[in-house]
């Protein structure tokens, strides 16, 4: 799954208005009548991150899972090594997952 941020070409810190603008530009360049698949991709991306609620949900339930998959693949398919990654190494790798980073955006300084 390609990140909705990448589909719309916005940063993870983008504000609602910027995301909306990117969505509208995407729609303008890919009208549903011309290429409905591409349009649907843009629409889904927008629906996933259009406001803070959606972005939080996305960060919690989508991004980590995808990264876990990548991590697991990396852990079990180490080139050259004679088997799965050592537990310590795996934990080290796990700590690089962006969950905290993703969530950090939503915890407002008080």
């Amino acid at each position, binding site marked *: 799954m390609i990140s909705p941020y990448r589909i719309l070409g916005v940063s993870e810190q983008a504000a609602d208005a910027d995301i*909306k*603008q990117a969505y*509208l*530009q995407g*729609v*303008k360049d890919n*009208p*549903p*009548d011309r290429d*409905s698949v591409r*349009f*649907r991709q843009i*629409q889904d991306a927008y*629906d996933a991150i259009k406001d803070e609620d959606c972005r939080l949900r996305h960060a919690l339930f989508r991004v980590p899972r995808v990264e876990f998959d990548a991590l697991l693949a990396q852990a079990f398919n180490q080139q050259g090594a004679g088997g799965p990654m050592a537990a310590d190494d795996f934990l080290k790798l796990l700590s690089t997952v962006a969950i905290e980073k993703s969530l950090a955006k939503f915890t407002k300084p008080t």
Partner: protein
Amino acid sequence: MNDIIIGIDLGTTNSEVAIVENGKVTVIADAGKKILPSFVGLDDNGSILVGETARNQYLIYPERTVKSIKRLMGQDTQVTIAGQAYTPQEVSAIILKRLKAIAEAYVGQPIVKAVITVPAYFSDSQRQATREAGEIAGLEVVRMINEPTAAALVYGAGRLDAKRMLVYDLGGGTFDVSVVNVQSGVVEVLASHGDNHLGGDDFDQLIVDRILAHIREQFGIEVEPHGKAMARITRAAEQAKLCLSDEPYATIEEEYLLEHQGTPLHLKMELARSDYEDLIADHINATMDATHIALKGAKLTASDIDEIILVGGSTRTPCIRERLFEEFGFEPHGEVDPDLCVAMGAAMQAAMINGEDIGTVLVDVTPYTFGTCAVGYLDGLPYPYQYVPIVHKNSVLPVRKTEAFETFHDNQREVNVRIFQGEDPDALNNVEIGEFLVEGLLDVPAGNIITLTLDLDLNGILHVSAREKASGKEKAITINNAISRFDSGELNSAKQRIDGLFGETAGGEGGSGPESPAAAAARNAIKKAEALFETVSAEDKEDMVDLIETISNCLENSDEAGLREPVERLNDIIYYLES
């Protein structure tokens, strides 16, 4: 060069055709008139009349003239013109053919493609019927777009500032309301709601009822059985309605309306605007309720709306403007003629589909929720028809959603999938729009997973498929109202029949020549009669069987002249039985 694609507003009362040339939208005029009344009739010689001439004839020969056919689209019914039965699709096709001819005369070349508008709140079967009408008229319907959306496209084109618009579209037979966001060259529908059987015709009917009550009180006469008098009253009611848009009082006057026991009856009554507004108050309230539902669907309130766009002739009613002013606090827009702006939007969308850059892109939603039913719970109790919504209302089109279900019984070899449109948690309170059987499932314990995919295309037409996960066995259908749906053979014969009315001969496709309109109508009547057999009395049935036999003999011997009388009699019986 691409084929020309025309934009058509196929309205309940009026229809228009428009085209984009060199980036400019033109509503094409025929003999100076841009509006074609949606009336169809047959004249003394059996020639087809469409538009103004048919509307004029309606007063004298209501029995061979049809108006407001759009209200019947998607229903399994027929209308009778001069003793012959036609489906709503066929009558609509006659109007479309006329519009096609007007456009062809204007551009000087054949046209085979069109974008046709439909009310946003048109159901799946009403959309299917519209597409079929196009096919019968010899038009490939490249896209159906929603009428309020088409209007928003006209108002939104070329605007760069962000605006939230409310499109209030009250036509002859349908009401739609859409909340639209226009920004950066994208016209984005946020929510739609409406009523597919509410419009100016209903207002006319209320005035007609008032007139009939008046005549009953004053003269003790029932006018309903007198077709011509009813046609005149209907026309007088419509004129009074139009008059009341500008005047506080309207006089309804019809001399020699009919003769009663040797004395002529002259109708004269006055209708005050305030009385008229009381008559239609419930309808107007219903439109305001729908407006609030649409706003809620868009997660907005009245104060978020920057502009109101009025579409449809019925929005000329002053109290509608007043009510909207009360709700929103500013005057609605009406710069673009409310009768023409839908056709213009259709033409713009046609140009865009044809690859022209019109500077604006359309994003639309479905006003309906679609789903299926499953064994579940209702109000906390087990219930076999719990509604499971799959595509939610106000989803952006096109949309595709999949839901997984499990078989309920061990060794369950088939599943009956029923598709509904609506919001009620009890599926049976929603409109069932289709069903199909998935057979030959694996012989396994309960819990066999079946996935159901609903795919709603840009035209608002639903495609459904079910798949048994374990075997990959799939069954797919395009939802269509099994009753009103034409198969391709029927479509073809309808096309030949309508072509025949226009004096065109079908293309040389070999085999036996096309059937004459009379013969086709006769077969239609027979089919119709046979469908009624189960419900009629023995006596009626006997009459019908006799007539069918006579008609069949005539058909076999190609005795066209002999057909007329028995077909007419059979149609009379059918008409009597159905009303």
